[in-house]
Protein backbone atom coordinates (compact mmCIF):
# COMPACT_ATOMS: atom_id res chain seq x y z
CA UNK A 1 0.00 0.00 0.00
CA UNK A 2 3.02 2.22 -0.45
CA UNK A 3 1.38 4.23 -3.18
CA UNK A 4 -1.24 5.64 -0.85
CA UNK A 5 -0.43 9.23 -0.21
CA UNK A 6 -3.63 9.71 1.69
CA UNK A 7 -3.31 10.85 5.25
CA UNK A 8 -4.54 8.42 7.88
CA UNK A 9 -4.60 5.41 5.61
CA UNK A 10 -3.64 2.43 7.70
CA UNK A 11 -2.77 -0.43 5.39
CA UNK A 12 -4.83 -3.58 5.07
CA UNK A 13 -5.22 -4.75 8.68
CA UNK A 14 -8.06 -3.01 10.43
CA UNK A 15 -6.39 -2.91 13.84
CA UNK A 16 -9.03 -5.14 15.36
CA UNK A 17 -11.96 -3.03 14.24
CA UNK A 18 -14.23 -3.57 11.32
CA UNK A 19 -13.48 -1.36 8.40
CA UNK A 20 -14.47 -0.46 4.89
CA UNK A 21 -11.94 0.38 2.26
CA UNK A 22 -12.51 2.20 -0.94
CA UNK A 23 -9.54 1.54 -3.16
CA UNK A 24 -8.63 3.38 -6.35
CA UNK A 25 -12.20 4.32 -7.19
CA UNK A 26 -12.73 6.02 -10.50
CA UNK A 27 -15.93 6.91 -12.34
CA UNK A 28 -16.19 7.93 -15.95
CA UNK A 29 -19.52 8.75 -17.52
CA UNK A 30 -19.34 8.90 -21.29
CA UNK A 31 -15.99 10.58 -21.86
CA UNK A 32 -16.16 12.75 -18.75
CA UNK A 33 -13.93 11.68 -15.91
CA UNK A 34 -15.86 12.50 -12.77
CA UNK A 35 -13.74 10.78 -10.15
CA UNK A 36 -10.33 9.19 -10.20
CA UNK A 37 -7.93 7.59 -7.79
CA UNK A 38 -10.16 7.86 -4.72
CA UNK A 39 -8.89 6.00 -1.66
CA UNK A 40 -10.85 6.12 1.56
CA UNK A 41 -10.60 4.03 4.69
CA UNK A 42 -13.40 4.03 7.23
CA UNK A 43 -13.64 2.47 10.66
CA UNK A 44 -16.77 1.43 12.51
CA UNK A 45 -18.37 3.97 14.79
CA UNK A 46 -16.91 6.79 12.73
CA UNK A 47 -18.84 9.48 11.00
CA UNK A 48 -16.93 10.49 7.91
CA UNK A 49 -18.15 13.61 6.20
CA UNK A 50 -17.48 14.21 2.52
CA UNK A 51 -17.40 17.83 1.47
CA UNK A 52 -16.53 19.53 -1.77
CA UNK A 53 -17.78 22.13 -4.24
CA UNK A 54 -20.74 21.53 -6.54
CA UNK A 55 -19.91 18.99 -9.22
CA UNK A 56 -16.97 17.62 -7.24
CA UNK A 57 -18.39 14.11 -7.55
CA UNK A 58 -19.72 13.63 -4.01
CA UNK A 59 -23.04 12.07 -4.92
CA UNK A 60 -21.34 10.18 -7.73
CA UNK A 61 -18.98 8.62 -5.21
CA UNK A 62 -21.89 7.40 -3.10
CA UNK A 63 -23.65 5.97 -6.13
CA UNK A 64 -20.45 4.19 -7.14
CA UNK A 65 -20.12 2.71 -3.64
CA UNK A 66 -23.71 1.55 -3.91
CA UNK A 67 -22.98 -0.14 -7.21
CA UNK A 68 -25.57 2.03 -8.96
CA UNK A 69 -22.85 3.53 -11.15
CA UNK A 70 -20.10 1.65 -12.91
CA UNK A 71 -16.68 2.32 -11.42
CA UNK A 72 -13.11 1.10 -11.43
CA UNK A 73 -11.38 0.08 -8.22
CA UNK A 74 -12.59 -1.98 -5.30
CA UNK A 75 -14.81 -1.77 -2.26
CA UNK A 76 -13.64 -4.05 0.53
CA UNK A 77 -15.12 -4.77 3.88
CA UNK A 78 -13.64 -6.60 6.84
CA UNK A 79 -15.57 -7.24 10.06
CA UNK A 80 -14.14 -6.91 13.56
CA UNK A 81 -13.06 -10.54 13.85
CA UNK A 82 -11.61 -10.49 10.37
CA UNK A 83 -14.01 -13.29 9.41
CA UNK A 84 -16.48 -11.82 7.01
CA UNK A 85 -15.04 -9.99 4.10
CA UNK A 86 -16.40 -8.98 0.78
CA UNK A 87 -19.16 -6.58 -0.05
CA UNK A 88 -20.62 -4.75 2.94
CA UNK A 89 -24.33 -4.48 3.62
CA UNK A 90 -25.13 -0.88 2.73
CA UNK A 91 -27.88 1.38 4.01
CA UNK A 92 -28.55 4.39 1.82
CA UNK A 93 -30.45 7.61 2.38
CA UNK A 94 -30.56 9.41 -0.98
CA UNK A 95 -30.05 13.12 -1.39
CA UNK A 96 -33.56 13.59 -2.50
CA UNK A 97 -35.83 10.67 -3.19
CA UNK A 98 -37.31 11.64 -6.50
CA UNK A 99 -40.44 9.61 -6.96
CA UNK A 100 -43.90 10.19 -8.26
CA UNK A 101 -45.79 11.71 -5.33
CA UNK A 102 -49.03 10.26 -6.69
CA UNK A 103 -47.77 6.73 -6.25
CA UNK A 104 -50.25 4.63 -4.29
CA UNK A 105 -47.52 3.18 -2.08
CA UNK A 106 -47.61 3.41 1.69
CA UNK A 107 -44.62 3.53 4.04
CA UNK A 108 -45.48 -0.01 5.10
CA UNK A 109 -45.48 -1.15 1.44
CA UNK A 110 -41.99 0.28 1.06
CA UNK A 111 -40.71 -1.62 4.10
CA UNK A 112 -42.43 -4.84 3.02
CA UNK A 113 -41.06 -4.59 -0.49
CA UNK A 114 -37.55 -4.15 0.91
CA UNK A 115 -37.58 -6.70 3.68
CA UNK A 116 -40.02 -9.49 2.90
CA UNK A 117 -40.26 -12.13 0.22
CA UNK A 118 -44.06 -12.11 0.29
CA UNK A 119 -45.41 -10.16 -2.69
CA UNK A 120 -46.66 -6.80 -1.44
CA UNK A 121 -49.56 -6.72 -3.89
CA UNK A 122 -51.01 -9.90 -2.41
CA UNK A 123 -50.45 -9.88 1.33
CA UNK A 124 -49.03 -8.02 4.30
CA UNK A 125 -48.44 -9.95 7.51
CA UNK A 126 -48.74 -8.78 11.10
CA UNK A 127 -45.13 -9.78 11.60
CA UNK A 128 -43.80 -7.60 8.81
CA UNK A 129 -45.94 -4.70 10.01
CA UNK A 130 -44.50 -5.02 13.53
CA UNK A 131 -41.01 -5.06 12.11
CA UNK A 132 -41.66 -1.92 10.08
CA UNK A 133 -43.11 -0.15 13.14
CA UNK A 134 -40.12 -1.11 15.26
CA UNK A 135 -37.68 0.19 12.64
CA UNK A 136 -39.65 3.39 12.17
CA UNK A 137 -39.69 4.05 15.91
CA UNK A 138 -35.87 4.33 15.83
CA UNK A 139 -36.25 7.46 13.72
CA UNK A 140 -39.39 8.67 15.57
CA UNK A 141 -41.55 7.89 12.57
CA UNK A 142 -43.81 5.13 13.91
CA UNK A 143 -46.95 7.15 13.33
CA UNK A 144 -46.21 7.31 9.60
CA UNK A 145 -46.52 3.54 8.98
CA UNK A 146 -49.80 3.66 7.07
CA UNK A 147 -49.23 6.98 5.33
CA UNK A 148 -48.84 7.31 1.60
CA UNK A 149 -45.26 8.13 0.55
CA UNK A 150 -46.36 11.14 -1.46
CA UNK A 151 -48.20 12.59 1.56
CA UNK A 152 -45.06 12.82 3.71
CA UNK A 153 -43.28 16.11 4.32
CA UNK A 154 -39.59 16.43 3.44
CA UNK A 155 -38.49 15.82 7.02
CA UNK A 156 -40.87 12.90 7.52
CA UNK A 157 -39.68 11.24 4.32
CA UNK A 158 -36.07 11.65 5.39
CA UNK A 159 -36.78 9.94 8.72
CA UNK A 160 -38.63 7.11 7.00
CA UNK A 161 -35.68 6.61 4.64
CA UNK A 162 -33.24 6.65 7.55
CA UNK A 163 -35.33 4.01 9.37
CA UNK A 164 -35.40 1.96 6.17
CA UNK A 165 -31.64 2.26 5.72
CA UNK A 166 -31.19 0.88 9.25
CA UNK A 167 -33.36 -2.20 8.70
CA UNK A 168 -31.48 -4.52 8.58
CA UNK A 169 -28.63 -2.80 10.47
CA UNK A 170 -26.04 -2.12 7.75
CA UNK A 171 -22.25 -2.35 7.85
CA UNK A 172 -22.01 0.97 6.13
CA UNK A 173 -24.52 3.79 6.14
CA UNK A 174 -24.46 6.27 3.26
CA UNK A 175 -26.20 9.58 3.76
CA UNK A 176 -26.39 11.90 0.78
CA UNK A 177 -27.06 15.48 1.80
CA UNK A 178 -29.99 14.55 3.98
CA UNK A 179 -30.48 18.21 4.79
CA UNK A 180 -32.14 19.47 1.62
CA UNK A 181 -35.82 20.24 2.01
CA UNK A 182 -35.71 20.19 5.80
CA UNK A 183 -35.91 23.20 8.11
CA UNK A 184 -33.16 24.00 10.60
CA UNK A 185 -34.89 22.22 13.49
CA UNK A 186 -35.46 19.06 11.47
CA UNK A 187 -31.87 19.20 10.31
CA UNK A 188 -30.43 19.31 13.81
CA UNK A 189 -32.77 16.52 14.86
CA UNK A 190 -31.55 14.44 11.95
CA UNK A 191 -27.89 15.00 12.79
CA UNK A 192 -28.37 14.16 16.45
CA UNK A 193 -30.32 10.98 15.57
CA UNK A 194 -27.55 9.91 13.20
CA UNK A 195 -24.90 10.70 15.79
CA UNK A 196 -26.71 8.62 18.42
CA UNK A 197 -27.16 5.70 16.05
CA UNK A 198 -23.48 5.68 15.21
CA UNK A 199 -22.62 5.01 18.85
CA UNK A 200 -25.51 2.65 19.48
CA UNK A 201 -24.88 0.34 16.51
CA UNK A 202 -21.19 1.03 16.01
CA UNK A 203 -21.97 2.08 12.45
CA UNK A 204 -19.64 3.36 9.79
CA UNK A 205 -21.27 6.39 8.30
CA UNK A 206 -20.37 8.32 5.18
CA UNK A 207 -22.18 11.61 5.04
CA UNK A 208 -22.18 13.95 2.05
CA UNK A 209 -22.96 17.42 3.25
CA UNK A 210 -22.97 21.09 2.36
CA UNK A 211 -23.57 22.22 5.92
CA UNK A 212 -19.99 22.74 7.03
CA UNK A 213 -20.99 23.97 10.48
CA UNK A 214 -22.80 20.76 11.31
CA UNK A 215 -20.00 18.73 9.75
CA UNK A 216 -17.54 20.42 12.06
CA UNK A 217 -19.77 19.68 15.02
CA UNK A 218 -20.58 16.03 14.35
CA UNK A 219 -18.02 14.44 12.02
CA UNK A 220 -15.05 12.40 13.23
CA UNK A 221 -13.29 12.69 9.94
CA UNK A 222 -13.68 15.00 7.00
CA UNK A 223 -12.71 14.27 3.42
CA UNK A 224 -12.51 17.07 0.90
CA UNK A 225 -13.22 15.88 -2.62
CA UNK A 226 -12.79 17.62 -5.92
CA UNK A 227 -12.52 14.98 -8.64
CA UNK A 228 -10.28 13.05 -6.28
CA UNK A 229 -9.43 13.15 -2.57
CA UNK A 230 -7.87 16.57 -1.94
CA UNK A 231 -7.66 16.42 1.83
CA UNK A 232 -8.52 13.98 4.56
CA UNK A 233 -8.26 14.24 8.33
CA UNK A 234 -10.00 15.52 11.44
CA UNK A 235 -12.45 18.40 10.98
CA UNK A 236 -9.91 20.74 12.50
CA UNK A 237 -7.14 19.69 10.14
CA UNK A 238 -9.32 19.99 7.06
CA UNK A 239 -11.04 23.24 7.93
CA UNK A 240 -7.79 24.96 8.82
CA UNK A 241 -6.12 23.93 5.59
CA UNK A 242 -5.55 26.55 2.95
CA UNK A 243 -6.91 24.31 0.19
CA UNK A 244 -10.32 24.18 1.87
CA UNK A 245 -10.75 27.93 1.89
CA UNK A 246 -9.42 28.08 -1.67
CA UNK A 247 -12.05 25.65 -2.89
CA UNK A 248 -14.95 27.09 -0.94
CA UNK A 249 -13.89 30.69 -1.49
CA UNK A 250 -13.87 33.81 0.57
CA UNK A 251 -17.64 33.96 1.15
CA UNK A 252 -17.59 30.61 2.87
CA UNK A 253 -14.64 31.66 4.98
CA UNK A 254 -16.41 34.83 6.08
CA UNK A 255 -19.61 32.94 6.92
CA UNK A 256 -17.64 30.48 8.90
CA UNK A 257 -15.86 33.05 11.04
CA UNK A 258 -19.15 34.86 11.46
CA UNK A 259 -21.00 31.79 12.67
CA UNK A 260 -18.11 30.83 14.87
CA UNK A 261 -18.20 34.17 16.60
CA UNK A 262 -21.95 33.68 17.03
CA UNK A 263 -21.38 30.36 18.76
CA UNK A 264 -18.66 31.58 21.01
Amino acid at each position, binding site marked *: MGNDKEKGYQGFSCSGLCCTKIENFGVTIGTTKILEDVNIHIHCGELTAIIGPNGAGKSTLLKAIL*GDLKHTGQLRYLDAKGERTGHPLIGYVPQHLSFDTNT*PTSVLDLFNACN*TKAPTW*LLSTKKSEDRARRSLSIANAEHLTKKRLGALSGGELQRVLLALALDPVPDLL*LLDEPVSGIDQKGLEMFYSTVSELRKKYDLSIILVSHDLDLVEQYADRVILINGTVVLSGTPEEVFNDERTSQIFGISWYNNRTKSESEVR
Partner: protein
Amino acid sequence: MLGAWYTLIDAVLPFQWAGHIFMKNALLAVLLITPLFGLIGTMVVSNKMAFFSDALGHGSFTGIAIGTLLGLVNPTYAAIIFSVVFALTITTIKEKSRESADTIIGVFSSLGVALGLVLMSLGGGFNKYSSYLIGDLLSITPEQILVLVLVFIAVIVCWLFIFNKLLLVGINSSLAASRGIKTLPVEMVFTCIVAVVVTISIQWVGLLIINALLVLPAASARNITGNVRRYTFTAIGIAMLSGLSGLIASYYFNTATGATIVLVSGVFFFISLALKNKYN
Protein backbone atom coordinates in the same frame (compact mmCIF):
# COMPACT_ATOMS: atom_id res chain seq x y z
CA MET B 1 -63.03 -28.54 -20.03
CA LEU B 2 -64.50 -25.87 -22.25
CA GLY B 3 -67.72 -27.88 -22.24
CA ALA B 4 -68.04 -27.37 -18.50
CA TRP B 5 -67.58 -23.62 -19.03
CA TYR B 6 -70.37 -23.54 -21.64
CA THR B 7 -72.73 -25.42 -19.29
CA LEU B 8 -71.85 -23.09 -16.44
CA ILE B 9 -72.56 -20.00 -18.52
CA ASP B 10 -75.88 -21.39 -19.72
CA ALA B 11 -76.84 -21.99 -16.10
CA VAL B 12 -75.59 -18.70 -14.63
CA LEU B 13 -76.18 -16.28 -17.47
CA PRO B 14 -79.39 -17.21 -19.28
CA PHE B 15 -79.23 -14.10 -21.47
CA GLN B 16 -79.41 -13.80 -25.22
CA TRP B 17 -75.84 -12.50 -25.60
CA ALA B 18 -74.42 -15.40 -23.62
CA GLY B 19 -76.23 -17.93 -25.76
CA HIS B 20 -73.67 -17.98 -28.59
CA ILE B 21 -70.56 -20.12 -28.42
CA PHE B 22 -68.38 -17.26 -29.71
CA MET B 23 -69.66 -15.05 -26.91
CA LYS B 24 -68.89 -17.70 -24.32
CA ASN B 25 -65.36 -17.97 -25.71
CA ALA B 26 -64.99 -14.20 -25.79
CA LEU B 27 -66.28 -13.96 -22.23
CA LEU B 28 -63.68 -16.43 -21.02
CA ALA B 29 -60.97 -14.57 -22.94
CA VAL B 30 -62.06 -11.27 -21.37
CA LEU B 31 -61.92 -12.83 -17.90
CA LEU B 32 -58.34 -13.92 -18.63
CA ILE B 33 -56.99 -10.89 -20.48
CA THR B 34 -58.44 -8.01 -18.45
CA PRO B 35 -57.08 -9.06 -15.01
CA LEU B 36 -53.64 -9.45 -16.60
CA PHE B 37 -53.89 -6.00 -18.11
CA GLY B 38 -55.01 -4.56 -14.78
CA LEU B 39 -52.19 -6.32 -12.96
CA ILE B 40 -49.24 -5.42 -15.15
CA GLY B 41 -50.79 -2.05 -15.95
CA THR B 42 -50.17 -0.99 -12.35
CA MET B 43 -46.42 -1.18 -12.85
CA VAL B 44 -46.54 0.18 -16.41
CA VAL B 45 -48.19 3.29 -15.00
CA SER B 46 -46.10 3.47 -11.80
CA ASN B 47 -42.84 3.09 -13.70
CA LYS B 48 -43.95 5.62 -16.33
CA MET B 49 -43.78 3.14 -19.17
CA ALA B 50 -47.01 3.96 -20.98
CA PHE B 51 -45.12 5.12 -24.06
CA PHE B 52 -42.86 2.08 -23.84
CA SER B 53 -45.73 -0.39 -23.80
CA ASP B 54 -47.20 1.42 -26.78
CA ALA B 55 -43.93 0.83 -28.63
CA LEU B 56 -44.08 -2.84 -27.67
CA GLY B 57 -47.45 -3.06 -29.39
CA HIS B 58 -45.88 -1.66 -32.55
CA GLY B 59 -43.04 -4.17 -32.24
CA SER B 60 -45.41 -7.08 -32.07
CA PHE B 61 -47.22 -5.73 -35.13
CA THR B 62 -43.97 -6.12 -37.06
CA GLY B 63 -43.50 -9.55 -35.49
CA ILE B 64 -46.85 -10.67 -36.87
CA ALA B 65 -45.91 -9.42 -40.35
CA ILE B 66 -42.65 -11.35 -40.18
CA GLY B 67 -44.44 -14.47 -38.94
CA THR B 68 -46.89 -14.29 -41.80
CA LEU B 69 -44.15 -13.73 -44.39
CA LEU B 70 -42.36 -16.80 -43.06
CA GLY B 71 -45.51 -18.67 -43.97
CA LEU B 72 -46.50 -19.68 -40.47
CA VAL B 73 -50.14 -20.67 -39.97
CA ASN B 74 -50.21 -18.90 -36.61
CA PRO B 75 -47.88 -15.90 -36.73
CA THR B 76 -48.34 -15.21 -33.02
CA TYR B 77 -45.36 -17.32 -31.92
CA ALA B 78 -42.98 -15.56 -34.30
CA ALA B 79 -44.46 -12.29 -33.09
CA ILE B 80 -43.81 -13.19 -29.44
CA ILE B 81 -40.17 -13.96 -30.13
CA PHE B 82 -39.75 -10.82 -32.20
CA SER B 83 -41.38 -8.51 -29.66
CA VAL B 84 -39.38 -9.96 -26.77
CA VAL B 85 -36.18 -9.28 -28.74
CA PHE B 86 -37.55 -5.85 -29.64
CA ALA B 87 -38.33 -5.08 -25.97
CA LEU B 88 -34.93 -6.23 -24.74
CA THR B 89 -33.21 -4.17 -27.44
CA ILE B 90 -35.03 -0.98 -26.48
CA THR B 91 -34.33 -1.57 -22.78
CA THR B 92 -30.63 -2.18 -23.40
CA ILE B 93 -30.16 0.82 -25.67
CA LYS B 94 -32.16 3.00 -23.27
CA GLU B 95 -29.77 1.90 -20.51
CA LYS B 96 -26.53 2.35 -22.46
CA SER B 97 -27.31 5.49 -24.37
CA ARG B 98 -27.31 9.00 -23.01
CA GLU B 99 -30.12 9.92 -25.35
CA SER B 100 -33.42 10.57 -23.55
CA ALA B 101 -35.58 7.48 -23.10
CA ASP B 102 -38.48 9.20 -24.84
CA THR B 103 -36.46 9.72 -28.01
CA ILE B 104 -35.21 6.15 -28.15
CA ILE B 105 -38.65 4.65 -27.57
CA GLY B 106 -40.07 7.03 -30.17
CA VAL B 107 -37.51 5.95 -32.74
CA PHE B 108 -38.11 2.25 -32.17
CA SER B 109 -41.85 2.66 -32.00
CA SER B 110 -42.11 4.35 -35.40
CA LEU B 111 -39.55 2.03 -36.98
CA GLY B 112 -41.50 -0.95 -35.64
CA VAL B 113 -44.80 0.12 -37.12
CA ALA B 114 -43.20 1.27 -40.39
CA LEU B 115 -41.41 -2.03 -40.89
CA GLY B 116 -44.62 -3.86 -40.08
CA LEU B 117 -46.58 -1.85 -42.64
CA VAL B 118 -43.92 -2.30 -45.33
CA LEU B 119 -43.78 -6.06 -44.79
CA MET B 120 -47.57 -6.38 -44.74
CA SER B 121 -48.07 -4.35 -47.91
CA LEU B 122 -45.34 -6.32 -49.69
CA GLY B 123 -47.74 -8.68 -51.44
CA GLY B 124 -50.35 -5.97 -51.91
CA GLY B 125 -52.85 -7.71 -49.68
CA PHE B 126 -52.98 -5.48 -46.64
CA ASN B 127 -56.63 -6.15 -45.84
CA LYS B 128 -56.09 -9.48 -44.17
CA TYR B 129 -54.05 -7.69 -41.50
CA SER B 130 -56.63 -5.10 -40.61
CA SER B 131 -57.89 -7.31 -37.76
CA TYR B 132 -54.58 -6.69 -36.01
CA LEU B 133 -55.24 -2.98 -36.05
CA ILE B 134 -58.76 -3.11 -34.64
CA GLY B 135 -58.80 -6.53 -33.06
CA ASP B 136 -61.48 -9.20 -33.14
CA LEU B 137 -62.19 -10.70 -29.76
CA LEU B 138 -65.22 -12.64 -30.98
CA SER B 139 -63.09 -14.78 -33.28
CA ILE B 140 -61.03 -16.35 -30.51
CA THR B 141 -60.74 -20.13 -30.70
CA PRO B 142 -60.57 -22.71 -27.87
CA GLU B 143 -56.89 -23.43 -28.67
CA GLN B 144 -56.06 -19.75 -28.33
CA ILE B 145 -57.91 -19.64 -25.02
CA LEU B 146 -55.70 -22.48 -23.81
CA VAL B 147 -52.60 -20.43 -24.70
CA LEU B 148 -54.14 -17.52 -22.79
CA VAL B 149 -54.62 -19.70 -19.71
CA LEU B 150 -50.95 -20.73 -19.81
CA VAL B 151 -49.79 -17.12 -20.20
CA PHE B 152 -52.14 -16.11 -17.38
CA ILE B 153 -50.58 -18.65 -14.99
CA ALA B 154 -47.02 -17.79 -16.04
CA VAL B 155 -47.54 -14.06 -15.53
CA ILE B 156 -49.11 -14.53 -12.08
CA VAL B 157 -46.18 -16.73 -11.01
CA CYS B 158 -43.64 -14.19 -12.30
CA TRP B 159 -45.54 -11.43 -10.57
CA LEU B 160 -45.30 -13.22 -7.21
CA PHE B 161 -41.52 -13.22 -7.45
CA ILE B 162 -40.69 -10.02 -9.22
CA PHE B 163 -43.21 -7.56 -7.82
CA ASN B 164 -41.39 -6.30 -4.70
CA LYS B 165 -38.25 -5.62 -6.69
CA LEU B 166 -40.15 -3.97 -9.47
CA LEU B 167 -41.98 -1.73 -7.01
CA LEU B 168 -38.68 -0.52 -5.51
CA VAL B 169 -37.07 0.04 -8.90
CA GLY B 170 -40.13 2.06 -9.86
CA ILE B 171 -39.94 4.23 -6.75
CA ASN B 172 -36.23 5.01 -7.05
CA SER B 173 -33.52 2.99 -8.75
CA SER B 174 -30.71 4.14 -6.44
CA LEU B 175 -32.75 3.10 -3.43
CA ALA B 176 -33.40 -0.26 -5.08
CA ALA B 177 -29.68 -0.70 -5.78
CA SER B 178 -28.92 -0.03 -2.12
CA ARG B 179 -31.16 -2.99 -1.25
CA GLY B 180 -29.08 -5.23 -3.49
CA ILE B 181 -31.49 -5.22 -6.42
CA LYS B 182 -30.00 -5.41 -9.89
CA THR B 183 -32.27 -2.98 -11.68
CA LEU B 184 -31.55 -3.93 -15.28
CA PRO B 185 -32.47 -7.64 -15.03
CA VAL B 186 -35.66 -6.73 -13.16
CA GLU B 187 -36.62 -4.29 -15.91
CA MET B 188 -35.77 -6.88 -18.55
CA VAL B 189 -38.07 -9.50 -17.01
CA PHE B 190 -40.84 -6.96 -16.68
CA THR B 191 -40.56 -5.72 -20.27
CA CYS B 192 -40.64 -9.35 -21.45
CA ILE B 193 -43.85 -9.94 -19.50
CA VAL B 194 -45.42 -6.83 -21.02
CA ALA B 195 -44.18 -7.80 -24.49
CA VAL B 196 -45.68 -11.29 -24.27
CA VAL B 197 -49.03 -10.14 -22.88
CA VAL B 198 -49.34 -7.33 -25.43
CA THR B 199 -48.38 -9.56 -28.37
CA ILE B 200 -50.69 -12.37 -27.41
CA SER B 201 -53.66 -10.04 -27.01
CA ILE B 202 -53.06 -7.78 -29.98
CA GLN B 203 -55.10 -9.82 -32.43
CA TRP B 204 -58.14 -9.66 -30.15
CA VAL B 205 -57.81 -6.16 -28.81
CA GLY B 206 -56.10 -4.40 -31.71
CA LEU B 207 -52.90 -2.38 -32.01
CA LEU B 208 -54.67 0.97 -31.98
CA ILE B 209 -56.14 0.64 -28.51
CA ILE B 210 -54.17 -2.05 -26.72
CA ASN B 211 -52.16 0.47 -24.75
CA ALA B 212 -55.27 2.20 -23.47
CA LEU B 213 -56.44 -1.09 -22.02
CA LEU B 214 -53.12 -1.46 -20.25
CA VAL B 215 -52.96 2.07 -18.89
CA LEU B 216 -56.55 3.12 -18.12
CA PRO B 217 -57.52 0.68 -15.32
CA ALA B 218 -54.28 1.30 -13.41
CA ALA B 219 -54.42 5.04 -13.99
CA SER B 220 -57.98 5.06 -12.58
CA ALA B 221 -57.06 2.88 -9.58
CA ARG B 222 -54.15 5.16 -8.80
CA ASN B 223 -56.44 8.11 -8.29
CA ILE B 224 -58.42 6.47 -5.54
CA THR B 225 -56.00 4.22 -3.61
CA GLY B 226 -53.22 4.74 -1.09
CA ASN B 227 -51.46 1.40 -0.82
CA VAL B 228 -50.15 -1.21 -3.18
CA ARG B 229 -52.64 -3.95 -2.41
CA ARG B 230 -55.68 -1.76 -2.96
CA TYR B 231 -54.06 -0.28 -6.05
CA THR B 232 -53.54 -3.71 -7.61
CA PHE B 233 -56.95 -5.13 -6.82
CA THR B 234 -58.81 -1.95 -7.75
CA ALA B 235 -57.01 -1.93 -11.11
CA ILE B 236 -57.90 -5.58 -11.69
CA GLY B 237 -61.51 -4.90 -10.67
CA ILE B 238 -61.87 -1.91 -12.97
CA ALA B 239 -60.25 -3.82 -15.86
CA MET B 240 -62.58 -6.80 -15.46
CA LEU B 241 -65.68 -4.67 -15.01
CA SER B 242 -64.83 -2.63 -18.13
CA GLY B 243 -64.09 -5.85 -20.01
CA LEU B 244 -67.41 -7.46 -19.13
CA SER B 245 -69.60 -4.42 -19.70
CA GLY B 246 -67.69 -3.53 -22.87
CA LEU B 247 -68.17 -7.03 -24.26
CA ILE B 248 -71.90 -7.05 -23.57
CA ALA B 249 -72.36 -3.50 -24.87
CA SER B 250 -70.46 -4.32 -28.06
CA TYR B 251 -72.79 -7.26 -28.66
CA TYR B 252 -75.93 -5.18 -28.42
CA PHE B 253 -74.61 -2.11 -30.23
CA ASN B 254 -72.73 -4.22 -32.77
CA THR B 255 -69.45 -2.34 -32.24
CA ALA B 256 -65.76 -3.34 -32.08
CA THR B 257 -65.31 -5.14 -28.76
CA GLY B 258 -61.84 -3.90 -27.82
CA ALA B 259 -62.70 -0.28 -28.51
CA THR B 260 -65.93 -0.53 -26.54
CA ILE B 261 -64.02 -1.93 -23.55
CA VAL B 262 -61.57 0.96 -23.76
CA LEU B 263 -64.43 3.48 -23.81
CA VAL B 264 -65.91 1.96 -20.66
CA SER B 265 -62.47 2.11 -18.95
CA GLY B 266 -62.28 5.73 -20.02
CA VAL B 267 -65.54 6.42 -18.17
CA PHE B 268 -64.07 4.78 -15.06
CA PHE B 269 -60.99 6.96 -15.39
CA PHE B 270 -62.96 10.20 -15.38
CA ILE B 271 -65.06 9.02 -12.45
CA SER B 272 -61.86 8.26 -10.50
CA LEU B 273 -60.46 11.65 -11.45
CA ALA B 274 -63.55 13.30 -10.00
CA LEU B 275 -63.24 11.20 -6.84
CA LYS B 276 -59.53 11.95 -6.49
CA ASN B 277 -59.95 15.30 -4.78
CA LYS B 278 -62.45 13.84 -2.35
CA TYR B 279 -60.12 10.93 -1.59
CA ASN B 280 -57.03 13.01 -0.90
